[in-house]
């Protein structure tokens, strides 16, 4: 059975890169499953067969740890950055969202996705939330938010910096980084799951270690993580 990694949607492109690198190093090719951190947590509590959970925050892994579903405590593997992505080539300050030509804003479901939570915090800090609420549409995760932007369904989307820095998305639209003081730091933690205690715990631990290696750090950095 292959090593299965449940990765939060913000990390979907970076983890693809990580997996590629890991395979080159070890010959092991893990399977990647992308979703929102909240949804993964719910699934893991129901016994989903994942080995490693790369969350978008600390809260969800901590919850799993407290329910004794993990091997060891959650550890932060990267700090994420929130960006405002737009369809046009013109960079857009957040304040401009109130303008009439911005009709729809995509935000990840704050109940399930930490990046969504961070977005709401930002908008509330800027006292824009109530005003913008009628324009907001919710995606299941950062991934659906990205999809809404790229299909043209929305005009702007709050997403992760790692998404817009992915080589495939680089020349699609433009982005503005959100001032990191406006939201609680997105400390992204990883845990090894107990459901993995099959034969490949060795491999699991190998990948876990790899996440904290110098090669991995470089990749995270390239994707805008801190």
């Amino acid at each position: 059975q292959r090593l299965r990694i449940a990765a939060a949607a913000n990390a979907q492109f970076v983890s693809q890169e990580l997996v590629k690198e890991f395979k080159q190093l070890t010959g092991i090719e893990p399977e990647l499953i992308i979703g929102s951190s909240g949804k993964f947590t719910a699934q893991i509590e129901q016994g989903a067969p994942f080995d490693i959970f790369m969350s978008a925050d600390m809260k969800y892994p901590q919850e799993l740890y407290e329910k004794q579903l993990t091997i060891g405590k959650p550890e932060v593997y990267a700090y994420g950055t929130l960006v405002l992505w737009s369809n046009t080539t013109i960079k857009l300050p957040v304040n401009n969202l109130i303008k009439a030509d911005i009709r729809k804003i995509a935000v990840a479901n704050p109940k399930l996705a930490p990046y969504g939570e961070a977005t709401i915090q930002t908008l509330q800090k800027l006292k824009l939330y109530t005003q913008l609420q009628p324009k907001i549409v919710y995606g299941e995760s950062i991934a659906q938010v990205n999809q809404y932007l790229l299909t043209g369904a929305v005009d702007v989307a709050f997403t992760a910096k790692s998404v817009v820095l992915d080589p495939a998305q680089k020349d699609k639209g433009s982005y503005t980084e959100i001032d990191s003081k406006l939201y609680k730091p997105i400390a992204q933690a990883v845990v090894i799951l107990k459901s993995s205690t099959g034969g490949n715990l060795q491999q699991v631990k190998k990948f876990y270690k790899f996440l904290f290696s110098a090669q991995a750090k470089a990749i995270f950095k390239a994707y805008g993580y801190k």
Partner: protein
Amino acid sequence: MMYQPLWLTFKLALATTLCLLLLGIPIAAVLAKSRSKLKPFLEAIISLPLVLPPSVLGFYLLLAFSPQNGFGKMLDVAFNIRLLFSFSGLVISSIIYSLPFMVHPVQAGLEALPASLREASQTLGKSSWQTFIKVLLPNIKPALLTGIILTFAHTLGEFGLVLMIGGNIPGVTKVASIAIYDEVESLNFSTAHIYAAILMVVSFVILLTVYLTNKRLNKSRIAT
């Protein structure tokens, strides 16, 4: 607040059913009358939503409705209408999704009427329109009822499509089936229980009505 998704679902089912009455009956009438070689093709197209994954339909609707592309752009530019993330968009996709549930029973009902009723009306000098309204429609009431009830119930159950093109906006597109999904994924099982139980009971009562009515009328069947 808690009942908003339920109320929205009900509104969506009602709007879809009304629109499909206006749209589905003529389609059923044309199919019932047709002896064309193209009829099986038309029937297959109309039944497609019965077997197509909602994610396929949803993907195509997302592209079609997007204000960046052809149809969506035209609507946006010409009428300032955006169907994505709007209630009207959900109504339109529900109409496509539930089309077979209205067309099939009505078509079957019309096909089961003896041809002599239509012909008698013709020989009495009445137009096709008069014949349809005064003679044919009033005599397929059980089939119409089945169509209405099934369309309504099936729209209550719409999920995948709304997930893809709804945007989960409270009061606008967050229908009950999506609310359940949301609550389950957020591990609020108790809220999910309430929604699920209500939808379950409503669906069951609706179906039971159809079957009890059909048993009494000893006519048209639910599916196939």
